[in-house]
């Protein structure tokens, strides 16, 4: 098992190398000049030249890439073009916000999705089954942007139950340790901040959870349906076990295996940043930051951000594989 994990970690290196080459080539063929964008309408030839020189844009492409690799090998992602801050610092300032939102959304979607899926499978073709599957179809198809605004209008503006946007009330002072506000407020025993952080988290987490929720629910349903038709379930029924015990003890463990993959993949995707949700709810996460980097042609942000996202994706996949083995000992990690 340990050998397997080590091998998988080693695979990360060529994967990231490939990712970085692809990103670098894409940036090279995309038009747009960060120096022009930085200086805007008022750029003079002098100021443009000075800026390009400073940014190293006049060097040939392969030299730029070589310099980039050299830095990365020294665990240095360089400085961003726009804010002149270390890319790693910029990421660390925003990534906790993304982790917090993703975790909340994944908890909601996995929990509800699995329950909905199980009930739908055990009560196939009932009204509940139809309703929940129709609901999840809506969940997949609904634009997050629109849903976010609707949630905000109803629950924040009209009912006043939740705050509209941001991560924390403006009147609250929180000493940050991990930058995960929910965790920080618990660690510093700042209950007012905890309440505010949770309230701020609710609406964006709901908006973000709809798509994974729908996917998880449908996946659980179909997987459970298949398992429930297996012979060993019939045997269990013949033994006279209660339906509750059959579903939860015998069927679920097998039924969950494909669901774990789906949950893992969704988790990885969301950690890369949920641009739309972050934009609507003014959630200062890594997705909006990366998107702005693309718009502003901030090569350093794009490179650093994509490497981060790729690394996370690889590791989440690794965790999923390990979980597989734990849930189902029949699957060998070899």
């Amino acid at each position: 098992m340990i050998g397997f994990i080590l091998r998988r970690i080693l695979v990360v290196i060529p994967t990231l190398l490939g990712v970085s080459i692809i990103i670098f080539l894409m940036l090279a063929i995309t038009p747009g000049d960060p120096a022009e964008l930085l200086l805007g309408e008022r750029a003079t030839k002098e100021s443009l030249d000075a800026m390009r020189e400073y940014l190293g844009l006049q060097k040939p492409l392969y030299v730029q890439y070589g310099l980039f690799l050299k830095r990365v090998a020294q665990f240095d992602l360089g400085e961003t073009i726009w804010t002149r801050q270390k890319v790693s610092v910029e990421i660390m300032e925003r990534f906790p916000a993304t982790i917090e939102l993703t975790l909340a959304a994944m908890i909601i979607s996995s929990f509800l999705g699995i329950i909905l899926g199980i009930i739908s499978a055990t009560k196939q073709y009932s009204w509940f089954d139809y309703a929940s599957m129709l609901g999840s179809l809506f969940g997949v198809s609904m634009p997050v942007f629109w849903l976010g605004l609707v949630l905000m209008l109803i629950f924040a503006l009209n009912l006043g139950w939740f705050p509209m946007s941001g991560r924390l009330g403006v009147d609250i002072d929180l000493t940050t340790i991990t930058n995960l506000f929910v965790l920080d407020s618990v660690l510093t025993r700042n209950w007012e901040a905890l309440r505010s952080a949770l309230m701020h988290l609710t609406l964006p987490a709901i908006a973000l959870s709809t798509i994974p929720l729908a996917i998880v629910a449908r996946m659980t349903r179909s997987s459970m349906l298949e398992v429930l038709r297996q012979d060993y379930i019939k045997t269990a029924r013949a033994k006279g076990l209660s339906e509750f015990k059959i579903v939860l003890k015998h069927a679920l463990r097998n039924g969950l295996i494909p669901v774990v993959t789906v949950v893992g993949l969704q988790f990885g995707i969301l950690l890369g940043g949920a641009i739309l949700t972050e934009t609507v709810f003014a959630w200062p996460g890594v997705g909006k930051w990366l998107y702005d980097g693309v718009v502003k042609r901030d090569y350093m942000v794009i490179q650093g951000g994509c490497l981060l996202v790729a690394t996370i994706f690889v590791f989440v996949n690794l965790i999923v594989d390990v979980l597989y083995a734990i849930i189902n000992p029949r699957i060998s990690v070899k």
Partner: protein
Amino acid sequence: MMKKIGIFVCIFTFLIVSSSLAQTPKKGGTLVFGRGGDSVGLDPAYETDGNSFMICDNVYEALVFYKDESTALEPGLATSWEVSPDGLTYTFKLRKGVKFHDGTPFNADAVVFSHGRMMKERKIKFFGKGWEIPKQERPPEYWVSMEMDNTIDSIEAKDEHTVVYKLKRVEAPFLANMGMDFADIISPTAFMKDPAGFVRNPVGTGPFKFVKWIKDDRIILEAFKDYWNKAKGPYLDRVIFRAIPENSVRFLELKAGNIHICQFPNAADIPLAKKDPKLQVFTQPGMNIGYLGFNHKKEPWASNVKLRKAIAHAINRKAIVDNIYQGMGEVAKNCIPPTMWGYNKDVPGYQYDVELAKKLIAEAGYPEGKGLPEITLWSMPVARPYNPEGLKVGVAMIGDLAKIGIRARVVSYDWGTYLKRQREQPEDMDLFQLGWTGDNGDPDNFLAVLFDGMASPAVRIQWHNETYHNLMLQGKQTVDQAKRAEIYKKAQQLMYEECPVIPIAHSAVMWPGLKKVQNFKLHPTGSVYLGSVWLP
């Protein structure tokens, strides 16, 4: 009768008392300012964007200030200044008793340090011990683009409170430049403590001091208790700048009362704000111009004035302002805004007149557009303060041009490429949209920088007109403002006659805010000063 008079007197007294109460600023409170994005950095020398300058406006101050709602100059950190008769030496007398937020005193050495660090060749002299200024890592963008290295020769602190600037050339806009954000004075002690970290820990002399920055979320400032100018507050205890990227969400936050001022709302939300009894709309004519330029490197545009004028009369600019700017602006006659000194209100402007346009295009040698190939109209892909929707404006213009027989198509690129290629004046560009937001309120900053093609091949309108070029040189080299105004008026008349560009519109800035926000004034430069603002 007496009873009626009594009631009238009571009401009158009540009105007077209540209005005078309303005028007395109250101290305290937190103002939350909602804006579309976060600041990039907080070192005034290196910033280029409005969201960064907005914080700098409140943390730092410059030697000269712009007056409220105008770009007329008034004493700032300098109490007075003298210009030598040859226009090459500026001597500033500095304000005494001013402190930086870190407690260190503001003096002539701080001025030499703040400006000297941006110079390419540092010809500077401190009065006291001074500092060894670290080499600058990055070009200071505004310093370079305002050509300060070509203007300033040396900066010297004569004594604790006197600074002398020796110039290389007579440059009338120099004083106005000294009021711009890039010329803000910073605390040398704070900078030297951590040169790389200063961009995130700004220290100046302004009414508010920096407290905390949560990236992409908020920047918190608090009142600076030792602020020198008691007449300008600060009245608020704290100011929080929140980044709320989505325009409609920002407006909803305002409606819910969670923020006090909402920057750049969707145009459609302005009428809603005007109707809402809890809201007010702050308005300011913008110091900007959106224009349609010709490719002067290419015929027939370079030499055919009648053709250029035909297009100017064919475009229905009022319809564009009414429908695409949604009324937030006015049709432009000249290429400088009407609020600026030197504006020539006697220029008639190009009237929308299709018949006249048809007549002109025939006289230009292209009756009903015959003989003219399909032309390209470059339209901006992004919203800018002077043009909210370039692509829509482009489509409207094409419709107008078709009426006089000109076939045109809209061309667009991503913004960076657009700016870059436009500068090259390529063969495939006939007409192009662009514009400008003023920096320092000086007509030179519009008329010379944008349209004097003879000054440099990098000027975006490559119009080569000897008379105009000479007027621009005269304008720079004349120190007396009244004389300069006359020169720029002549230049505007010449532009009207020659039509090197078609001025489209000056857009207005409209930001809704809560009714209870007192004494907030938008500034033509786009600066946001909150020192005098208070909450009841």
